[in-house]
Structures are given as structure tokens and as C-alpha cells.
């Protein structure tokens, strides 16, 4: 069974291995086509100097038509960045992961977008409704329908 998703991900992986990731982004785990981990650091001046976060991608067989489930890893002592769009359980409110996902995007493109989301952060704080959200949050962030009203990156 060589699904479109497996073949697409194999190509993305081959490109990462041969071309490398953009600066500050590193692939740390890709043992299969269901779950990949990256580390993300913000380069240059930012509120996240010297912080390193781990980003998890989960893929289903509908990828890339269906978006990957992306969140920060918050186990094994890892922490989600403190950011107005990142919940303490690692879930991220970003339209590119929801209604603005497009199958022409790639895993690396998502990493770069989230890196720039952190880079442009002006104030380190959790989303206002963090506590309420994480109490009821589904395991899969794709099951949350975030509302994206803010057009700032």
C-alpha cells in the first residue's frame, strides 16, 4: 500500500535530508510516516532567546489533502513556548494548521511559519482562555475549531 501520503512524505523527508532544514529548525525524529518531531529555535533577537521547543507533526493517510496535526511537545520536561496563540498543552491556534491549510504547503513550510510566529511575538503570555481550553481540549488539536480573527503574523 503505497499511499499518496507515504510517497509525499518520503519526498519531503528526502529533501530535508539532502537540503537540510532552514536555520533554527532541526529534524529530530521521523521513524515512520505517522509522527515526526522537529526542534525549533528563534534565531536573532526575540523573546525566546536560548529557548528550544519541540514540535510534533502527526499525519493521517489523507495527508496532504488533510492537514497534519501539529503541536508543541509538553512531555519529558519539554515545554510549549509562552505565546498568546500557544496553549500550555502544546496546542497552537494558527490558521495555517486549520482552515488555511493547503496541500501545496509542506512540513518545513509549517515549521518556518511557526518559527516566525514566535519571532514576531511582542509579549510572552498564554492565551486568555488557556485554563478553560486545556480542561476540555481534545487530544488531537485538529478537532478544535479555533477562530482566527487576528491577521498579524
Amino acid at each position, binding site marked *: 500500500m503505497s499511499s499518496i501520503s*507515504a510517497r509525499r512524505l*518520503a519526498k519531503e523527508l528526502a529533501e530535508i535530508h539532502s537540503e537540510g532544514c532552514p536555520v533554527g529548525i532541526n529534524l529530530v525524529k521521523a521513524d515512520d510516516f505517522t509522527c515526526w518531531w522537529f526542534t525549533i529555535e528563534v534565531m536573532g533577537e526575540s523573546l525566546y532567546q536560548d529557548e528550544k521547543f519541540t514540535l510534533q507533526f502527526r499525519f493521517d493517510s489523507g495527508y496532504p489533502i488533510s492537514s497534519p496535526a501539529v503541536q508543541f511537545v509538553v512531555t519529558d520536561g519539554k515545554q510549549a513556548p509562552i505565546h498568546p496563540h500557544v496553549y500550555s498543552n502544546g496546542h497552537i491556534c494558527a490558521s495555517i494548521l486549520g482552515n488555511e491549510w*493547503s496541500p501545496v504547503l509542506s512540513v518545513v*513550510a509549517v515549521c518556518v*511559519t511557526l518559527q516566525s510566529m514566535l519571532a514576531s511575538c511582542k509579549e510572552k503570555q498564554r492565551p486568555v*482562555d488557556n485554563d478553560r481550553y486545556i480542561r476540555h481540549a481534545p*487530544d488531537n488539536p485538529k478537532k478544535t475549531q479555533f477562530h482566527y*480573527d487576528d491577521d498579524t*503574523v
Partner: protein
Amino acid sequence: MTGFSDKRLDKLMNDIQDPLDFPENTAAPGLRSLDTALRCPICSEFFEGPVTLICGHCFCSLCIRTFLGTKQECPTCRRTDVNEGHLRVNPVMEETVLSWQNSRSFILQLLKVGESRQNGVHGSKKRRKIDDSDSDLDAERIGSSSGRGARDDDSDDSTVKISEVGETELHTPKPNDFVPCPVCSKRVLLKDINIHIDNGCKEKADPSSSKSQWAGILGTKSQTAKSTKRKGKEVVSSDDEDLPLPKKSYGTLKDKAIKELLSEHNLPTTGDRNTLIARHQQWVIIYNANRDKSSKQRKSIEILRQELKQWESRQKGKSKTEISDATTYQREQKSEFERLVNAARPKKTTPSSLSPVPQVRSVHVSFHKDDNTIVLDSEEETPRIS
């Protein structure tokens, strides 16, 4: 290494081709971007049955039809006034892709020969990039200059035969290895692959995975390729073949009517209402996407049925295992993963090119501001059914 030079097998072993097979622009102007431009931005494969939307963006018919079933938007430019009715076949692109696929390995071989001539005995690191026919062992040998030199003496020899293209392949499988069929992706013993393809990808009796009805419809192993083809044509007359299948609004249809729609195309009528609808919906997509190819490139109805069946079994696996505890799926994917990653491995050994940042399409992102508007949606993901 020779002996498996069958064209079909070449196709199979060239499974994981991508634009990185070609050197950077400075070394081979335009080739890498040409190889990219002829690929569908959704699946990253060469366009299969290319179609364009009104904005001019081009995709495989199957890819864009599947996508438009989830969202009315051009994946590339996000224009929203697009729909399936706008799809126009792009036979010129199809022709271009076929020609490029024919010349691709030849060009790679020319590049390889040219490179080794230029670089002489002291082969540069760049060489490895286009060297997609060397074995893994060779990647190790590259480290030692003596091994490299010995190797290059061979390649430097002006008697290098272009006709050898494709005969020296990576990880050449043995006759008793399972390899994925290039047509239907089913894993088949290498020694059986030609018979399998000649038989129109029919299974050699696989009672575990196929429902009896599917088996009946897809025929028994005793059937020959010829009878298969004839059977396909019986179902869809040549007049019908000229028209795309219309999309149905299933809401107004009784189960019986949906079953009739399926029977018309000699498809199974088993399963609950949602299964029936999903099956017919996917059949319309597969059928119409096939129609968007030039007649020479079209698959037989028989193979389309096979593809529908595979799609259905993938859907089942998908709904059974939620993404969070997808251990079965994970296990299934593991071997596939290893195969594909191994196929891609020689390209990874390219330390010379770790520098440039891959091109990332610019993306527009927005975030929520009004924190009271978050809605939890705990509904199960359902198959796409309108």
C-alpha cells in the same frame, strides 16, 4: 544487477524520484526546476491526467478532484471561485510530462558521464548528487580516495554505455522479494510482477483482504488480461465513455437507488448507506480523473475498480485507528516507510549541500484575538460525504 531490466521494473525502482536527482542550477541550469515544474504540487509526482483550474494552476485530475471535494479553493493561489466544472484537461502538459519521463534517466546518465569526465580521477562531491545509480556501498567508498579513483577510472572510460541506464539500480530486489506493483501498489513477489501486471493487477487469491463480492467483481485468477479488458468494456459502453459521470446528491436518493448506481458500474453493493455513498463518490472521482487522461494513458475499468477497492480498504484502516492511537496504521506504515526511505537514502549522503534554505512558499497566517470564540468540536471525523 542486470537481468531485471524490464521497463516496468525500472519504473518501479525509480519510485522515489524527485527534483533533487538533478544538480543545482549552477551545475545543470534549469533541470532541477524543470523537474519540479512538471510535478503536481499536491502529490509531488509527475502530473497524471493534468487539469487546470480557471486561475491556470495545474494539478493531477485525481488530486484536485479529491481536494475540491473538501474545499472549493485553488490550493496554490487560494482563489475560491473555482469548482470541478472549471477543470480543463491539459493534454500539452501531459505530453510534456511523458516526454520528460522518457528522457529523464537518459539525461541523468549524460550528466553523470559529463561530470566524471570533467572531474577526472578526483571526483568532486557534487558528483554524488546526480549519481543515483550507485549502490550504498559506493557511498561509503566515496570517503576513501583510492576507492573513488578506481571507480572513476571506469566511469571515465569513454566506452560508458548509455544503454546501461536503468540497469544498474539501487537495492536490486531478488525474485522472491516483495515489491510494490507500479500500477496498483499491491505488494507482489518480484518474479510474479510481470504476470501480475499482465493480468490487470488481479490478486493471486487473497482471501483475507477481499470480500467475496469484490473478488467476484474483480474476477478470478484464471482470467487472462484479454478477458479482463473485454469485461471492462462490457460494463461501460464506448458511448458512455465519452461523458464524465455526474455527481449525485445522495441526500435525495434511497439506498436502493444508490445500489443501482453502483451496480451500473459493476461495483459491490455491500455495506451501510455511508459506505455505499462513499464508494460511489470515490468511483466518480476515480472515473472522471481517468477520463481526463488522453485515451492512450487511460487505465482499464478493471484497474479503476482495483483502485477503488484499495481506496476503500485504506479508508477502513483510517476510521478504525484514530490519529492519536494509530498503532496499527503505524505498524503498517513502518515497512512502507523503510522501503521508501531506503529508496531515497543514497541522495541523503550529500553533505556538500547542507547549506541553502529550501524554498518555502510564502504563507499567510492569522491567529485568533477574541478568546471567547473558541469552539470545541469533538465530533468524530467522518468520511467526506456531502
